[in-house]
């Protein structure tokens, strides 16, 4: 047993982190917002970095790594709010031609979390998709996104996550069984937890920097105990998210080391809630500036909420965990 990141994993983390810092700085996100939230060039570069083919065996054109590595990569993507259907396209590797190369942008509908009839079907990034996957209790289905009866919603919660309302969802082509659907759902939960971990880290980092620079009453606000304790709680939430997301990645790679269902539910539940809470905490630290459009905290809060609505909400994961208790 060794919980540390291996040398290769540290290199992987540094590589993806410096790519994101250079390619997706905050200004680029603001720019993307004006241009419709999707950058085909960035998508191809992410594909070249191996983001989508990361876990696909090398013989099938992938990188041949595992979930633990994918968690490290997705935490970095989450940290920089990289937009697009990252998790779906990653899950589609090996299942949909072109997903690995970025030639086909794959999105999805999680009908396990929201079965048809339970409310409006709201889909992210639909206008940029080449393929749409639907995860259902009874299998994995593939649809042509352009054939759907859908309308763009003019006011998305997250400026970088455009959404459509799908009026009617046809069955589509069945490309996988119930077991595959459950496996993809579990993997989606863990990768989304990793994105949330990145949000936990980024919100703490930016809020902490701000608290060191911003002065009131003649000194940096980070020196006030009330602020220090708020930031310390954000640190604890970040560490909870990190430990649970890392553990989930490692457990999906080696199920004999634990209980993958519990590990995935724990990570999605806690990293998910902590991302929303840390984003809220960073808005609080920024104070009045935190409530403005130009400052980053609200972007994180909105994206964190988007993540909370897919691959199982808190209640679903708590029920999974309760079921394992008795």
């Amino acid at each position, binding site marked *: *047993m*060794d*919980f*540390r*990141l*291996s040398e290769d*994993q540290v290199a992987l983390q540094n590589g993806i982190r410096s790519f994101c810092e250079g390619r997706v700085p905050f200004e680029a996100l603001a720019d993307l917002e004006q241009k419709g939230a999707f950058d085909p060039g960035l998508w191809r570069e992410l594909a070249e970095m191996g983001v989508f083919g990361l876990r696909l065996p090398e013989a099938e054109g992938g990188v041949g790594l595992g979930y*633990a590595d994918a968690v490290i990569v997705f935490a970095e993507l989450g940290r920089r709010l990289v937009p697009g259907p990252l998790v779906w396209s990653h899950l589609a590797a090996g299942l949909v031609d072109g997903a690995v190369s970025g030639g086909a942008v794959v999105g999805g509908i999680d009908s396990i979390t929201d079965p048809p009839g339970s409310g409006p079907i709201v889909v992210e990034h639909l206008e940029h998709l080449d393929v749409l996957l639907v995860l259902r209790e009874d299998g994995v289905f593939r649809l042509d996104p352009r054939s759907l009866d859908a309308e763009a919603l003019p006011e998305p919660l997250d400026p970088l996550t455009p959404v459509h309302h799908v009026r009617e969802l046809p069955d589509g082509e069945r490309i996988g069984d119930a077991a595959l659907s459950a496996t993809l759902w579990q993997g989606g939960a863990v990768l989304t937890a990793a994105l949330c971990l990145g949000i936990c880290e980024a919100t*703490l980092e930016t809020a*902490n920097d701000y*608290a*060191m620079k911003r002065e009131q009453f003649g*000194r*940096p606000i*980070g*020196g006030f*105990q009330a*602020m*220090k*304790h708020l*930031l*310390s*709680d954000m*640190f*604890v939430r970040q*560490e*909870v998210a*990190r*430990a*649970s997301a*890392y*553990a989930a*990645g*490692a*457990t999906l*790679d*080696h199920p*004999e*080391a*634990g209980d993958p269902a*519990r*590990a995935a*539910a*724990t990570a999605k*539940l*806690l990293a998910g809630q902590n991302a929303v809470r840390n984003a809220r905490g960073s808005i609080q630290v920024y104070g009045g500036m935190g409530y403005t459009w130009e400052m980053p905290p609200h972007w994180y809060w909105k994206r964190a909420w988007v993540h909370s609505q897919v691959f199982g909400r*808190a*209640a679903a*994961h*708590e*029920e*999974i*965990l*309760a*079921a*394992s*208790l*008795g």
Partner: protein
Amino acid sequence: MDLRHSPEDEKFRDELRVWLEREVPAHGETPPIDDWDARRVYDTSWQKKLFDVGYAGINWPKEYGGGDLSLPQQLIYYEETARAQAPYVGVNFVGMLHGGPTLIAEGTDAQKEAHIPRILRGDEIWCQGFSEPGAGSDLASLRTTAIRDGDDYVVNGHKIWTSFAQVADYCELLVRTDPDTPKHGGISWLILPMDAAGLEIRPLPTLQGESDFSEVFLTDVRIPVSNLVGAENDGWRVTNVTLRFERGTAFASEMINLQQFVAALVEVAKLPAPGGPAWDDMETRRALGHASAELDALWAMLKLSIAEAIETGVPGLGGSAVKLYYSELCQRICEFGMELLGRASLSRGDVGGRPSQKVLSKAFQSLSLTIAAGTSQIQRNIIGERILGLPKEVRR
């Protein structure tokens, strides 16, 4: 990042499990909390059994008789002993987790020889004489004085919250040896024999109603200079060595116990009730499911914090986050347990088939966790200032 155990570690687990299955039932029932003589016998004879088979001092160096287990094996040890409901370290706590490790790091050869083997075998009980009525979170403001007189120090002062003072043979005593140097500079670490003349031990009942800790009054107590650990006036640094040992895995077995506690609460929730068991209620299931997720995350956090401490060589700081999270989580879980008991929670003893005793004693204990070993507020200051690098408080 690989959470699988090696075949050797699994073998260690199997052997330990077999041994525990035989020895734990044979060790008998836990004595009543106020029967100190029985508690001493119970805890120390268990320590002796651990020593005889090589399970004592699992993180102590081999040359001092410890097990020197690898980190994975230490974690397995905590998992298995908690699962088997083996006796807790109990009255051996201070010796095994504070005093012994401090002597190993800072003691003279004579001090090590005199105490280490006896602590490890359960022959010697220690207590902690750090806090004073005026020196709690601000420990370095302590005022107990030690004045050099020939080959002795003459000690006068008042210690409080001294756990196990009634049964201890020795005390790790912090004193001020230089009254002119304020705060951290003038402190020394002494070994106080608890049978010294001039000692008065006054039990201090806790909110549980028993006397797990005491006040200790010292009046002209003579302690040989040879009992000084580390250099004179260097006690603050020695203390931090002690505290470093306390962090890390000190709470590991309690975390596993808390997992078992949640499993017990599930059983309470399933008891029949007029409107159906509480377990049929989604809110109850969600609360318990959530608690179990947090405990899994806590265990992963402990592993991660220890693994990274080994990597960076800077132990301790990550432990503040683990301790803070654990202690507050334990309180939340205990309060939920009391909620499940309903009106049975008004009795400290079991009533109507509800395990009030188990839930309430855990709940009482949970109230101490956010205070002992550095309050939650102090932990938040440590995280803020030493991990996040925020400006330090003004201190005097």
